[in-house]
């Protein structure tokens, strides 16, 4: 029957907050006794009615994870992925409705998920996929014009710090996660079979270019140099440290690829704007 201004028949009337907390508990834990007390059965049990929403909650968030982790999904298969995702979702519901940001610690979850223990490289592939997903959705930013560096005198150049493009991420993986991810996404079984999962570690740079997201392999020295630059160390600090690499050439490559958006001369002052005028 429609709720035509009827008095509710039994039980204390919950506040809106109490009701929503009970629904949350029911959806995430599966224990919906508290929420059921507030729901009219009417030919279908309260629990069955709440199931419709529980299924919506789980399937929508599982889809969000599948979109961010397509290679993990293929590696473990749909059924295993769904099972892992359901456990993860129950313990880690999203903090916001911006689902492109959901699932950042799924790799950490997989690292401690014993049924996946035989796939030691799985957390590495997940971490790489998360970096790629973040790069795909990172905010737009104009790359730094390398000519700006030429406008600085030598002393200023030594003190300069670089602001990385929001899409740039650097990660180190114990296994060749880049090769595994690529062969899985390309469904190239022969390539996947040829990969030695122990052939690590690898040092990776992830970014979004005009053509889309890219994963580039660096050597260890280039990677450590780039990490230091992206962490905002002053150029002279980075150059003074012995990374054993052709620092100038690597810096030039990053500048040409648009991996920085601004330069600063100290910790607080972004001079990219004033130099451009």
């Amino acid at each position, binding site marked *: 029957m429609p709720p035509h201004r009827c008095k509710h028949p039994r039980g204390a*009337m919950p506040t809106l907050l109490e009701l929503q907390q009970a629904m*949350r508990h029911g959806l995430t834990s599966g224990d919906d006794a508290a929420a059921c007390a*507030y729901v009219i059965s009417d030919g279908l049990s309260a629990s069955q009615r709440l199931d419709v929403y529980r299924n919506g909650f789980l399937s929508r968030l599982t889809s969000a994870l599948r979109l961010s982790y397509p290679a993990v999904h293929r590696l473990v298969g749909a059924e295993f992925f769904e099972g892992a995702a359901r456990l993860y979702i129950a313990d880690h519901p999203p903090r916001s409705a*911006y689902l492109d940001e959901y699932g950042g610690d799924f790799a950490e979850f997989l690292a401690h998920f014993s049924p996946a223990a035989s796939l030691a490289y799985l957390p590495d592939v997940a971490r790489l996929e998360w970096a790629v997903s973040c790069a*795909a959705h990172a905010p737009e930013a104009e790359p730094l014009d390398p000519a700006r560096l030429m406008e600085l005198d030598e002393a200023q150049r030594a003190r300069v710090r670089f602001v990385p493009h929001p899409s740039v991420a650097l990660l180190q993986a114990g296994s060749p996660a880049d090769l595994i991810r690529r062969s899985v996404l390309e469904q190239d079984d022969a390539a996947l079979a040829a990969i030695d999962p122990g052939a690590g570690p690898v040092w990776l740079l992830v970014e979004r270019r005009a053509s889309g997201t890219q994963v580039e392999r660096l050597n260890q020295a280039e990677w450590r140099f780039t990490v230091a630059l992206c962490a905002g160390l002053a150029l002279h600090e980075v150059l003074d440290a012995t990374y054993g690499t052709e620092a100038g050439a690597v810096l030039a490559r990053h500048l040409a690829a648009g991996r920085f958006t601004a330069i600063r001369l100290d910790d607080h002052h972004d001079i990219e704007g004033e130099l451009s005028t």
Partner: protein
Amino acid sequence: MMGKRAVPHAPVAPKARGPIPAEAGIGLRFRHHQEVLESRPAVAWFEVHTENYFGGGAAPACLEAVRREYPVSLHGVGLSLGSADGVDRVHLERVRGVIERVDPGLVSEHLSWSAVGGAYLGDLLPLPMTEEALEVVCRHVDQAQSGLDRRILVENPSTYLQFRHSTIPEWEFLAALARRTGCGILCDVNNIYVSAANHGWDALTYLDALPAAAIGEIHLAGHTVRELEGGRTLRIDDHGSRVAPQVWALYAEALARFGPVPTLIEWDTDVPALEVLQQEAAHAAASLQASAGRYADAA
């Protein structure tokens, strides 16, 4: 407080500024982005889910390109107007960012809630129809409209349960919300059909109770019928098929009451070829045209 209005991301110079026309539009999904940009199909307008364009990259760039050719409406699924513990300010600011980027003709949200205690529950969850809930939703619609500097439309949801302590019929709740906040109503005809069937409501009573002047948009979509024990059925709004014949009939009833209103074909599960969506839009366009004639005759 909301921050100062930011400079738009990229200059938008749409050919098709202004409101969404009282014609049939299509929900634009990623699958059709490229095709729409390449073939420029004859579609009156497009609607997108706001949350899919919060970030940077290819999707928002594509939407901006579409916007230069078509009117675009933004349909949110995550503002959670019915949350007891408040509207997420960061989310509202992000919606505002997309509005500044896209210059939409309409902005809409749902009569539902999705978040509590800092957890987003990924679905449009039903509200108890109580005075307390009405006050909460009114407060949040006020916040959204002042934060976004514009009127929003609020859509009736499909529901699969009712709460024991509800005291207000949903149609009266929605009408009161529009009256108190000045918001518009996005009348989802499929949702009315689904909820009415699930709860034994009279769909025409629902339509009759809505203030015609507040109806800013209509949604049409497909739903599935789940057979239950004892010969009962539960209708589920899954946006995964063509609009049901009974929903087309109810749509005609809605147009007879509201006059021609911008009407959207939504399809989110197993999204078909664009051509199928255009066929559904053509069906809606024919109803709109018939209604325009009748409406003019009556006036």
